């Protein structure tokens, strides 16, 4: 389980455009870097990120080795209803992690 830090406003007004931030600890090994023995280390990155808001996808990202380690994403969505944000990261070597956050929309 990697450490993740998601930032979602606790409350918002209906129709307000809110910023979401998602940060997760992952080395994002490019597949080009030589290890201490001189042999190139295999690629091991997070390849996909999805944000679902009350079950519906509102943002997604396809990531490549050019994304820096400990990937950071900030994006926007419209606050429509109270509920849950679900963030999922998937990647090489079966990496899969989900974090959730709640929002109250008035």
């Amino acid at each position, binding site marked *: 389980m990697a*450490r*993740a*830090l998601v*930032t979602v406003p606790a409350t918002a007004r209906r129709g307000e455009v809110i910023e979401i*931030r998602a*940060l*997760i*600890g992952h*080395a*994002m090994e490019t597949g080009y870097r030589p290890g201490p023995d001189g042999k190139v280390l295999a690629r091991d990155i997070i390849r996909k990120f999805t944000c679902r808001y009350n079950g519906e996808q509102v943002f997604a990202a396809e990531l490549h080795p050019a994304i*820096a*380690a*400990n990937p*950071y994403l*900030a994006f926007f969505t419209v606050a429509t209803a109270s509920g849950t944000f679900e963030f999922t990261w998937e990647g090489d070597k079966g990496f899969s992690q989900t974090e959730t956050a709640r929002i109250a929309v008035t």
Partner: protein
Amino acid sequence: MTIRVLALVLAVGALAAGAALAGADARKPGAAFMGAATQAMQRDDTQNPAMLWVGDGEALWRSKDGGNGKSCFSCHGDARASMKGVAARYPSFDTHSKRVLDLGQRIGQCRQTRQQAPPWRAESRELLALESHVALQSRGMPIAPPREARLEHAAARGKALFFQRIGQLNLSCAQCHDDNWGKRLAGSTIPQGHAGAYPVYRLEWQDMGSLQRRLRNCMSGVRAELPPYGAQELVDLEAYLAARAKGMAMESPGVRP
């Protein structure tokens, strides 16, 4: 004393007082030499990568470990209270081991003596996480090395090292960080070398690291032999740097290029 000499003394006194009042602390933190995007990364806890380590550190603080099943919390309670100002006072002279220790070494000693747990390896994820969590509790507070003779001896040794030329490039710390700060070296702006943001997330490492790791990078940069982690020279340098930055605000855990 004649009137003229008295006038001179008064004039010099006034000048000195004026200079002291003007304060004009010419010291600037490393953050002042970074680009706006990197400064924003450090300033904002929702995007500072170091906060990932702080999160791990919070969990480690409360996890029981070692032979007597204690956690840091067992003795120290909530770190937000008990660790407030602590990192700002390190390195410090430790009466138990009779050595000057930096924060990472002090944590290692606590683990061994109080938790009966093996110390974590230098630069290990666990140690940096706990250091980050502890150091965060001093953020904004002035760097305050304790007044203690043996610590001051270490700082004096560190000062000598700071001014000593080393490596194939035959450069001393002072030549870059005292004499040429603000100028460019390989595309980067040379900072003054104040170490109030450690542990830092260094963009070059894409990872968290201690001041000792950064000092070894500097030494590598001038093609000098690297002292091993925990070496006396590194601790002495840390002690000097703390004295040199005394009074500047802690920024830990920081972000640096």
